[in-house]
């Protein structure tokens, strides 16, 4: 796949279709891959990389990059295409300045899970028939893919590309029986006290680094309310735990109906807080109350929380646990 992508990048740069390529750049280790804009063929040949650790969703970079001069080539995994579409729907990226190539994805590996299995010194990784062969400085190791795959990929909602100019590999299909609401259901079944304890346990680890917000393709405000010194809420460490909870809850509310469930928030959290669960609760509720809706699936669709219909559910009818 990497060879095919590199070939297309060089061709499109060469014939002037694009003047930049947004992709992933190789690092010191096989897993420390950095999103990067490549401007020349040499840069592509030298550093361009696509492997099982290229988890970063590149679509948010297009907010800035699509406003620069010339067309940019971007490689999008299936889940990234949902974010891409959502950003188009919100008029945050300029579609005509982008050439999008969809690339197949069968799930990305989680380097920390590999490490937890005692697999270190990784120099290469290949997947075949649900098994990874991991090359390490200590020899090859084989491991079942589901054991070391990123959590978000284990409950992948769709392997379908919903937006592209060109595809490398198959278009893919929506995963009908993904288990992504399992944990939400468990949380719903808890008593309010149990649920409060769960979230305090998770959110109390927050260090207010804002990585979840800054990586989030749905968080593209020019200035976040938490960055406004006059808002009365803090962007940095909070004075008390109430504020620390509120940051995440407010953010989840703000992206409700717009979050595509790309899972970047939980991927980047240095404290491993399962932030995606807040978003999934909203996605599940939107599905329940307004009918099945997947943000980013269709940029023309009216968002359920952005329109009004006479038979919309009344707040009192939504239920919910009494405290």
């Amino acid at each position: 796949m990497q060879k095919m992508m590199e070939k297309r990048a060089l061709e499109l740069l060469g014939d002037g279709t694009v003047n930049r390529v947004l992709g992933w750049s190789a690092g010191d280790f096989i897993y420390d891959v950095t999103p990067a804009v490549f401007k020349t063929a040499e840069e592509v040949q030298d550093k361009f990389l696509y492997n099982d650790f290229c988890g970063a969703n590149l679509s948010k970079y297009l907010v800035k990059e699509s406003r620069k001069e010339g067309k940019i080539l971007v490689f999008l995994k299936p889940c990234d295409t949902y974010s891409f579409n959502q950003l188009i729907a919100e008029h945050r990226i300029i579609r005509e300045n982008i050439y999008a190539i969809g690339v197949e994805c069968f799930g990305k590996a989680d380097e920390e899970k590999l490490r937890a299995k005692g697999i270190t010194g990784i120099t290469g990784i290949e997947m075949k028939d649900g098994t990874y062969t991991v090359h390490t400085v200590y020899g090859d190791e084989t491991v079942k893919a589901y054991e070391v795959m990123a959590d978000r990929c284990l409950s992948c909602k769709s392997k379908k590309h919903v937006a592209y100019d060109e595809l490398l590999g198959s278009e893919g299909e929506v995963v009908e029986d993904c288990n992504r609401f399992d944990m939400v259901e468990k949380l719903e079944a808890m008593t309010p006290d149990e649920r409060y304890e769960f979230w305090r346990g998770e959110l109390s680890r927050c260090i207010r680094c804002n990585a979840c917000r800054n990586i989030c393709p749905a968080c593209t405000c020019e200035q976040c309310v938490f960055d406004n010194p006059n808002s009365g809420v803090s962007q940095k460490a909070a004075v008390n735990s109430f504020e620390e909870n509120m940051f995440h809850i407010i953010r989840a509310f703000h992206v409700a109906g717009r979050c595509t469930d790309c899972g970047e928030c939980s991927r980047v959290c240095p404290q491993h807080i399962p932030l995606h669960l807040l978003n999934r609760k909203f996605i599940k509720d939107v599905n329940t109350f307004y009918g099945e809706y997947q943000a980013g699936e269709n940029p023309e669709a009216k968002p359920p929380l952005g329109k009004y219909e006479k038979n919309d559910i009344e707040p009192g009818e939504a239920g919910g646990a009494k405290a």
Partner: protein
Amino acid sequence: MKKLSLAKLNDFFAAVAAKETLYLPVNNNVGKAEYKKWESGVEMSSALNTVRSAKDFFFPQTENLMEFKMTGKSVEVFDTREECEDFVIFGVRACDAASFAILDSVYLVDPVDSYYKSRREHGTVVTMACSKPAETCFCGTFGIDAANPAGDVTVWEVEGAYMLRANTEKGEALLASVADLLEDGCEKCVEEAQAKTRAILAKLPLAGLTTEGVGVGKTKELFDHPAWASLSESCLGCGTCTFVCPTCQCYDVRDFDTGNGIKRFRCWDSCMYSDFTKMAHGNSRNSQLERFRQRFMHKLVYYPDRNDGTFGCVGCGRCLARCPISMNIVKVMKTLGGKN
């Protein structure tokens, strides 16, 4: 050199904790190590390092400085400081132990930060030599020896036992207080363990990383280096690197309006944030390139310039493991040094 049989480890922790609060790395609910208070039944983590560094003990993420209460036209000021009690931190790695000296060079020079000083005076640091350094480790680049960490007491794990060496008066006092649990140690065992660790350290992928190209006197050469643009290009401007960093030392002082008064607190700040060093005239660093450059210039050039060549990084590797986009100080050093 003293020896503690691992069979007596819990007795040792209990004895220390009976006199002062003992903190040690413990696995949290997601299996990652963080410093927690030792209580009976608490097990020490076997992780190489904690997600957050040990600087939290001396420079906590938030702390209340004072409170004000307004009644009519009068303002009352309250000192909210609590008397700091003696405490012990167990299991600090060489990198984090070295970070304390860097924090000291900021907080213990005139004007001395009394909040920080009090915690430093009351804390005893027990370090743990590394035996299985990770591929993200590069403390050696900054002259730190993972096999011989600083601290008030240094601990080495050798077959079934800990070897303990007191390095300071505080350390001697700590070991004396648990003397009945200790036996005479074995210098040779420690030397063997050190040799093993050093052999691994020499083979690590970042073992050859040098500070060539950065350091004292490089401001003019590096400030306008063209590579800052590409290095900072995909930086998210989050504060992850800063907040997991054991040497990042910047803070903000903020007032929290409680409705009938003010809580003045300080909290960690990040040079990656858009309001960092925002003053009356506005902000001195308006682009992410400038903010990104500040963080690395501070650690690799400005700090050594003012501190006899000592670098402001200890090579713990946390930013390598945690940066959401995998951009980090190693990539910066390699690029500025012409290796990338």
